């Protein structure tokens, strides 16, 4: 037997390159994680653990990149960055997506520098190496180069797929297959909203000074929802609570919530829309929580009175009072699907203490701004809420940097945070094993 040859693309990978004792140290941190408590500081502040996250989570799993509305036509592309990775997600002529590493095979320049656009072939801005949409190098001026073989320098490819209009990418050579099952869970919830017939009303990019896990943790609980006055108008602040956990000041809201939920469920049954909660945050590889839940007020959308924010229904939906179909998908996204608009949230880690949070508001593609919707009103609630959440995340990030920080207990209403962290720890440990 010949000596094992390291595959080319494994060069520079952390697990194989970390000194043994550092690796042992990291493994120990994961192993001795105290259940039910927030993570130790290095998980939020340490550059080596961030690298491990990029490798074990973002380098292994299906991650959310964007939606069909961002690249509706052949040649449309977006570029997305996850830590050190930069990917081009491009709509090809067959209607599928090509995912390419945005790293020129000449000297490594970013091939596409815009966040979004449309292109035919891909031309590197440095020395104009030109790649086909499939990533093949089709032109490089090579005066006097006798032995230059273009076939050896294609852009590296990654996996891409689309489910119910959402686009996911996977950098791993062999993507986890469990995502198929997860997509079968969420597809029927989302399909009636028909993302392929939506357009971007607004996209917001904010950089939060916080580790990507803090962003996701914050999203998994409504313990802090008192801090969201705008959101509390339409989202029941009892979210995540169960009978017996309701504080006195929320009892009235709880009753209203129950009533709204049962009338929503009746509507869903009438129209054949699924609404049951599926909660598999740490019981499967592609962790998910999805449900259709009622909204307060008129129950139509995220507005102060719960009224619709866009007058055009999505897809073939028959009714505006469909609450919100909400999905949380690990590792980096969550979504609210209403009858009149959809909001997608993607978390794109930058480094251990910074994350890009991209929020995109989608409306029916025949809705006309100023006629069918008012952009300010459409985006108001979640723009405010995002800013508040950014502040919360940043408070925690600063805290984790203090020598006085020590993990604290997740409360009962924060069980989903614990589940997310448990999922994360399991995935990294699997990778280290």
């Amino acid at each position, binding site marked *: 037997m010949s000596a094992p040859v390291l595959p080319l693309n494994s060069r520079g990978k952390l697990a194989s390159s970390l000194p043994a004792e550092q690796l042992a140290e990291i493994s120990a941190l994961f192993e001795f994680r105290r259940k039910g408590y927030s993570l130790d500081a290095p998980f939020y502040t340490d550059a080596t653990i961030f690298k491990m996250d990029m490798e074990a989570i973002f380098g292994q799993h299906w991650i959310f990149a964007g939606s069909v509305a961002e690249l509706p*036509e*052949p*040649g449309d592309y977006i570029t997305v960055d996850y830590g050190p990775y930069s990917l081009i997600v491009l709509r090809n002529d067959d209607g599928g997506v090509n995912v390419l590493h945005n790293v020129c095979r000449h000297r490594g320049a970013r091939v596409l520098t815009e966040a979004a656009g*449309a*292109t*035919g*072939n891909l*031309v590197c801005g440095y020395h*104009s190496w*030109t790649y*086909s*949409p499939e990533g093949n190098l*089709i*032109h490089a*001026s090579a005066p006097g180069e006798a032995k230059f073989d273009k076939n050896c320098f294609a852009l590296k490819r990654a996996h891409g797929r689309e489910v119910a209009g959402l686009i996911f990418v996977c950098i791993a050579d062999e993507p986890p297959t469990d995502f198929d099952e997860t997509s079968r869970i969420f597809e029927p919830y989302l399909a009636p909203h028909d993302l392929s*017939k939506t357009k971007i009303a607004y996209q917001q990019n904010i950089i939060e000074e916080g580790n990507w896990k803090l962003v996701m943790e914050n999203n998994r609980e409504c313990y802090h929802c008192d801090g969201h006055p705008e959101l509390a108008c339409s989202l029941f602040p009892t979210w995540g609570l169960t009978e017996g956990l309701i504080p006195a000041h929320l009892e009235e809201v709880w009753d209203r919530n129950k009533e709204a939920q049962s009338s929503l469920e009746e509507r869903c049954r*009438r*129209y054949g829309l699924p609404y049951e909660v599926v909660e598999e945050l740490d019981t499967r590889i592609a962790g998910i929580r999805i449900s259709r839940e009622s909204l307060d007020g*008129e129950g*139509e959308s995220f507005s102060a009175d719960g*009224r*619709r924010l866009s*007058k*055009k*229904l999505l897809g*073939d*939906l*028959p*009714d*505006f*009072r469909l609450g919100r179909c909400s999905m949380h998908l690990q590792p980096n996204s969550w979504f609210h699907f209403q*009858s009149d608009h959809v909001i997608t949230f993607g978390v794109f880690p930058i480094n251990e203490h910074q994350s890009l949070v991209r929020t995109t508001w989608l409306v*029916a*593609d*025949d809705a*006309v701004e100023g*006629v069918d919707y008012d952009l300010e009103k459409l985006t108001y609630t979640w723009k405010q809420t995002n800013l508040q959440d950014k502040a919360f995340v940043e408070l925690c990030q600063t805290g984790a940097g203090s020598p006085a920080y020590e993990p604290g207990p997740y409360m009962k209403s924060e069980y989903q945070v614990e589940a997310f962290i448990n999922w994360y720890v399991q995935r990294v440990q699997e990778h280290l094993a």
Partner: protein
Amino acid sequence: MTELLTETIVQEPHRIRGLEMPWNRVMGSTEGPASAARALGPWHPQEFMAECVEIVPEVGGMMTFVFRRCDGAPLAFRAGQYVNVAFPVNGEDQDPADRSYSLSSAPTKPWTFDITVKRDPTGLVSPWVHQNIKPGTVLEMLGPVGAFHLPDADRRARYLLLAAGAGITPIMSMVRTIHSLPGQADVVVLYHGAADEGFAFNKELAYIASVDSRIRVFYSLGDRAKPADWEGLSGRLTAAMLNEVAPDANGRQVYACGPEGYLNTATELLGNVGVDDTSIHMEFFTGDRQTILEYQAELALAVDIAEEIAEEIADSAEDYYEGQPAAFGLYEPGYDAEGTLQATGMPLETVDPDAPEASDDGSDAGAEVSTPDASSFETVGTGSLTLSFMRTGINVRVDPTEHILGPAQRAGVRIGANCKEGMCGSCKVVKLSGEVEMNHQGGIRAREIDAGKFLPCCSTARTDMVIDA
């Protein structure tokens, strides 16, 4: 036999998505044959003469009068609109009485059109109409008028049509129109009448409802005594009744027509069941002073437009068919600056190949063509064709066999170029007029070509050209 038929399982038809009026595509098209069909596009009111060709008695004291235009043209209108008719009630030499009547026929059968008039014994005009209008009667009309009508295209045609009494006439036009069109729709009609023999069109409605699964019709007998065998609903409009016939009312567009009291109740109830104000469309058959004034204003505007157009026709019959009058936008709010077609998401497929769209960078290429005068430019090179480079301000002569890039660059036109093989796209420019033959290799997208762009490194000119470079 009947038994057998009712038990036969009939499969649902396969339909295109949404509803689109037949004139919708024609309106945006400039192709020759389509422009003839444009006469069917209801884009402005006109004054015209019409001849009665048939009268059809209806139940409920109503009478339908079928007309055709004396000039033989079809009457273009939208389902729900009305015409204003001059009735010579006091004889031919006296001032006529003008009255507006909803069109009850479908615009998809445009060669004749119907108005349905309910006889009001105390009125001045309707008894006269019933008495005097016969086949052969010619009347002066103005129309179509009115903003109460179905949209030209609707991807999710989900309607709740509410009618009380004679308010059924525009609703009938809508039902007939939808029934005559292919496409997905979901229509609930709730028709209130005072007496069971008072539901005009009931046989046709029953027929349509029985053969068209998209359309359901409910009758309610107001608050009068009901005959023993009455199978419809009873009582005035209530939230419970709305909920019963259309539990998803809040996701529908509502068109309601009837007496003012009925419509006021409807507005309130619809609000209660969650229908958005902007989804409620109403036509008042009787109204308070305010409503009457609004109708007068609508009519006055229609008269202005009709006159303006008549003048335009007199000036130039050709121009008349080329453009739409400025007042059109005002009259028909469904058409915004971007055009109704874009707004509805059912874009036209025909575009004028000679008018390049605005290019991606926002410069309005098409409109700029004539601004600088290419005839004053210096001309260089030899060849049978002339390329005018508008930004550089030079004319370059080329042969039809040579790629455009070389001669252009030699003449000092600044065009970046890298691969010179049609792959990299770096030489992309916009052509303002003329034809090229291009042999590219992926450096340009079909939709960029549609927008008038081309790659001069791999293109030869087929005609003289004007280029934005």
